[in-house]
């Protein structure tokens, strides 16, 4: 197996997971559980594809994906934060809505092709043997996924905003008592989650497989949600989780090509089983896990209380 093409394939498979999971991590850190990632991804994917094919501009496509993600997340935010609706059910309803809405808009885009998102050539180094293509020759969204993850890690650990966000997620009542605008912070976190899911969708329809077809996310939103839990709400582990999941998915496809005789269904189980196994291994440290899980996740906050 050639190392470089393998890594390149893993990067494309992992990037949509990392993008969406980074957004959801922030949302959940603020104490809100949005199970509508799959729906937001699909709306982002069709918006990006529609905008890119209408304008011919990949940048506008990516932007449209993010905006569509934000718009979809706004519905969720309004219902759960203003109308105090149940977060779990509203998130699932958002997925149903997103599948339907994206299919309706996408009906006139089925069968259209786009040029894939251009690969960059950073500092002219993408031609350097072995490492060039991996480190300097990716498309913009791959770099963005790393950039956003680093930014989130930095904000969470090094800034006042991060402290407030975590405080809101830990105990909204205490945060409120301290004078922090709980609802506003949560709106921000939910919309950020929407934007990142929208970008993940844009990555699907512009870079991963530059086309639109109904339900093309094929469950990746759910994997992204699971990865946030896997990461115990920490950015570093999220990176590890997304790339581990991507790598095992690709590895099992390669293994089949080598002629491994295990039934393919069992090969396809590997990424899921490996995620469970690794989670079991890293979860034994009870205290650290408890410190990381936002205590207020999924709970309704009454501002007047």
């Amino acid at each position, binding site marked *: 197996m050639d190392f470089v093409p393998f890594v390149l394939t893993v990067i494309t498979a992992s990037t949509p997971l990392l993008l969406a999971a980074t957004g959801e991590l922030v949302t959940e850190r603020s104490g809100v559980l949005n199970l509508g990632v799959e729906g937001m991804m699909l709306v982002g994917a069709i918006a990006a594809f529609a905008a890119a094919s209408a304008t011919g501009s990949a940048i506008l496509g990516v932007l449209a994906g993010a905006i569509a993600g934000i718009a979809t997340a706004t519905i969720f935010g309004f219902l759960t934060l203003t109308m105090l609706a149940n977060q779990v059910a509203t998130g699932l309803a958002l997925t149903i809505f997103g599948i339907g809405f994206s299919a309706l808009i996408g*009906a006139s885009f*089925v*069968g259209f092709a786009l040029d894939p998102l251009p690969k960059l050539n950073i500092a002219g180094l993408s031609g350097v043997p072995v490492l060039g293509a991996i480190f300097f020759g990716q498309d913009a969204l791959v770099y963005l996924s790393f950039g956003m993850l680093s930014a989130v890690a930095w904000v969470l650990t090094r800034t006042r905003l991060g402290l407030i966000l975590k405080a809101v997620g830990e105990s909204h009542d205490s945060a409120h008592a301290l004078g922090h605008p709980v609802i506003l912070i949560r709106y921000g976190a939910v919309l950020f989650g929407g934007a990142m899911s929208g970008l993940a969708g844009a990555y699907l329809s512009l870079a991963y497989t530059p*086309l639109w077809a109904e339900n093309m996310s094929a469950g990746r939103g759910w994997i992204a949600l699971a990865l946030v839990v896997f990461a115990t709400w920490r950015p570093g582990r999220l990176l590890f989780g997304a790339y581990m999941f991507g790598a095992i998915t690709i590895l099992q496809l390669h293994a089949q090509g*080598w002629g491994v005789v295990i039934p*393919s269904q069992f090969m396809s189980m590997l990424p899921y089983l490996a995620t469970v196994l690794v989670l079991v291994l890293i979860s034994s440290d009870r205290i650290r896990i408890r410190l990381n899980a936002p205590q207020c996740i999924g709970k309704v906050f009454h501002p007047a209380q």
Partner: protein
Amino acid sequence: MSARLAGAGIRSLTFIIQTLGGSKMKKRTFYKLIVGTVAAGLTCGGALALTVKTAVAQTKVGFVYVGPIGDHGWTYRHDQGRLAVDKAFGDKVKTTYVESVKEGPDAERVIRQLASTGHDLIFTTSFGFMNPTLKVARRFPKVHFEHATGYKRDKNVSTYSARFYEGRYIAGVIAGKISKSNRIGYVASFPIPEVVRGINAFILGARSVNPKMSISVVWVNTWYDPGKEGDAAKALIDQGADIITQHTDSPAPLQVAENRGVKGFGQASDMIKFAPKAQLTAIINNWNPYYVARTKAVIEGKWASSDVWDGLKPGMVEMAPYTNMPADVAKLAKEIEEAIRSGKLHPFAGPIKNQSGETVVAAGQIADDGMLLGMDFYVQGVEGSLPK
């Protein structure tokens, strides 16, 4: 203020949907132009007979789809067939469809709903609808049922399927001529006879012109996941395949071939738009003539239960233009196509040996439909073992 915002929101939503409706309308008119010319040719014979019987009540034809019509694959092609029926009969026929019907408990309800609301002819277009179709058919003896890809029939249940393997054999011949690495990458969905038959036909075609050819198969365990299908194609290319072919629904593997500079084949539809430099040809599912003919039979009262397994000859399987290959290969492909169509060549003509070298079809023999229908072995040249 919020109320006004909400009002504006609803208005803009309405606007968006109206605009969409409008653009859809335009597309449909455009489509009518294309299909109209094709269908007019197809049915000009029947049209004469039909105009005489204008007093006949409207015939209702229902379709049950397993996926969304926007999948650009299996279901999309069936819906093109439905539109051809619309076009061919105009007001005499009303077609309806239910999409994304999951195999399992929902199928029987949907089929029965169609049967009990005055549909005269119902097409159920996925293998998993077989038993529900038969069950409903027993309850509605006057309704005509058509089940795709199954093997159980009844007085009012026909089955139909297409010999896609004929197209795959031609694709194999082209691959055998073009490949430099002698290695084909095959992105496969599920190990069912239909898919196994396609793999075997492909390698038989390839080896007929180049005995060194081999096929490496990756099962993705889904009919439809563009990302995963594309990833499987990448893995196969990384392992040395320079021809990619697929038995899954999306154009993703072909797009990967285009980006990686190898060649590939379209599936179900002509996918040249997705891979202008990579698509060699495409095996097109064309249900249009069959759907039009069966509807006509119902209108004329001549429908009878049948088992149809058509290929290139009646046009249920079509080949997209042969592109991106030297002229002599294209010429050969056309000759093979013609030979299959005329019956001179059968893709599964002996001698055929299975992987362990046993002869399964002797020289001078042809695999019968029973063997083809239940095919559960690989022929020589396919790597790996068939999951059982």
